[in-house]
């Protein structure tokens, strides 16, 4: 009996020792490695926990898939969608630099290759085409999957907004997209610009709301730039873009005042 008590006592002492040393170790590692090993999972939900930073890669893969859909299921080296997705981008670009796989394949072939011949004819023809108008709804599921995988993929959010706003001409959908994007990324200057542009282009005369969004974008960009480090070119561009819209709005407002006064 005495032996049993001795064993139990030894067991409790061992547990106490291990517990205390565990606490001591954690408290000493926290300040030392807190910065080096942040134990924080970005985002929320099961995806964030399961995939961690791999979500960014998965998200990009979905964007790539959407780009392929935009070209009729063909993988092309074409920045059309990506460039337009940048909120601080003003339209038109030509496609002289766009190349598809067919071009590469043809360029690589020397002697006649019957397998290549069959492949190139079974697959989609050698035509560079883009989805347009209402057809672009087909891209939405892939962008939706992309932002679900990584809610901080601003490119994906802004490209989705561009498709809804400029291609589908569905301003309500565009506002829904950008509102959801801002919920996940509050104060992101590019998304604020997207919001401002939709409201500004709406033709509903909601200039006050548009001004509010552009001002918020300028302020958010300023805060980001103040954080130090080398200034991000995209943030600088976004700030200038938002400021240009604000100046335009001021000009319009002063013209309205002027015409009203006369």
């Amino acid at each position, binding site marked *: 009996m005495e032996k049993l008590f001795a064993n139990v006592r030894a067991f409790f002492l061992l547990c106490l020792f291990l517990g205390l040393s565990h606490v001591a170790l954690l408290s000493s590692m926290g300040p030392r490695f807190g910065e080096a090993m942040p134990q924080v999972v970005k985002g929320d939900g099961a995806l964030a926990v399961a995939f961690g930073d791999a979500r960014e890669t998965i998200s990009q893969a979905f964007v790539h898939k959407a780009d392929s*859909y935009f070209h*009729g*299921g*063909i993988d092309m080296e074409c920045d059309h969608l990506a460039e337009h997705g940048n909120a601080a981008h003003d339209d038109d670009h030509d496609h002289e630099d766009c190349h598809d796989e067919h071009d*590469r*394949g043809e360029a*690589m*072939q020397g002697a006649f*290759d*019957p*397998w*290549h011949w*069959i*492949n190139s*004819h*079974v*697959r*989609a*023809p050698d035509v560079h085409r883009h989805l347009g108008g*209402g057809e672009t*709804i*087909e*891209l*939405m*599921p*892939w*962008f*939706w*999957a992309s932002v679900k995988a990584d809610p901080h993929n601003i490119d994906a959010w802004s490209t*989705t907004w561009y498709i*809804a706003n400029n291609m589908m001409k*569905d301003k309500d*959908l565009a506002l*829904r*997209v950008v509102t*959801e994007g801002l919920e996940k990324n509050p104060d992101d200057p590019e998304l604020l610009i997207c919001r401002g542009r939709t409201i500004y282009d709406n033709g509903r005369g909601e200039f006050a709301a548009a001004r509010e969004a552009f001002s918020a974008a300028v302020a958010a960009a300023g805060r980001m730039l103040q954080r130090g480090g080398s200034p991000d070119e995209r943030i600088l561009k976004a700030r200038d873009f938002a400021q240009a819209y604000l100046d335009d709005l001021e000009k319009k407002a002063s013209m309205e005042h002027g015409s009203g006064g006369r």
Partner: protein
Amino acid sequence: MKLFARQVCALVKLSFVELWRRNDIFALVLLGLALMVPLSMATPFGAEGASRYLDEMALLLVWGFSLFIALGTGQRLFPPEFESRTIYPLLAKPISRGRLLVGKYIGAVAASWSALAFFYVLFVASVLLRGGTFAAELPQAIVLHFAFVALAVSVSLLGSLLVSASANLTLSALVLVGMFFFGRRLPEYAEGLNPALAWVVKTVYAIAPHSEFFDMRQRLVHGWGAVDGGVLVAVLAYAMWYVFVVILLADVVLNRKRV
């Protein structure tokens, strides 16, 4: 000839019964439904009307399931007969090994085709239920898919006579799926390799079964239209020649096998 037809009919019937009794197809259909129903109910950002992603997913499942069925059916043609020794009464009847091989192969292909036809009926039904239309490219896509299944069964049949079941299924799936996704890019990959490795890759490109020839999903999903008749004939001729050579090899292996 009449006798051969009767023997083949008996073997085809046997393959049908075996495949549909196993309930593999129904399990696959349930799996497909479990994946497709939630997908079809999704409305990304509250926007309705996108359908191509559903078509693509459904076709990918049809391809995956058909490959699963084809490889399994091809694999089960001879090894169980050897293990249970039922090959002896089969060969004791006035039937040659070559005839048995061809008969069993035709039976397996017919059974796999019936499963594929069932999957396509479900696919077309799902398209029509979503308010879609019957694509003009669909008959061509189905014909090429049928040819692919015939090729996959032959590859699996040859493998079943050479290696164990698990090795055969793994290797056949690796080759067919690998060629399906990367086959057309092999010459590109060979460009950057050292000469010896490049030769290996080019040899694989020359002789491996080009399953990507039969894949018309891109045309079907994105509405690129049908392929030229000449191309269709070329692909079917490729499939026929490939199957002929593989079955010939399987015949040689079976004839040399000590039963």
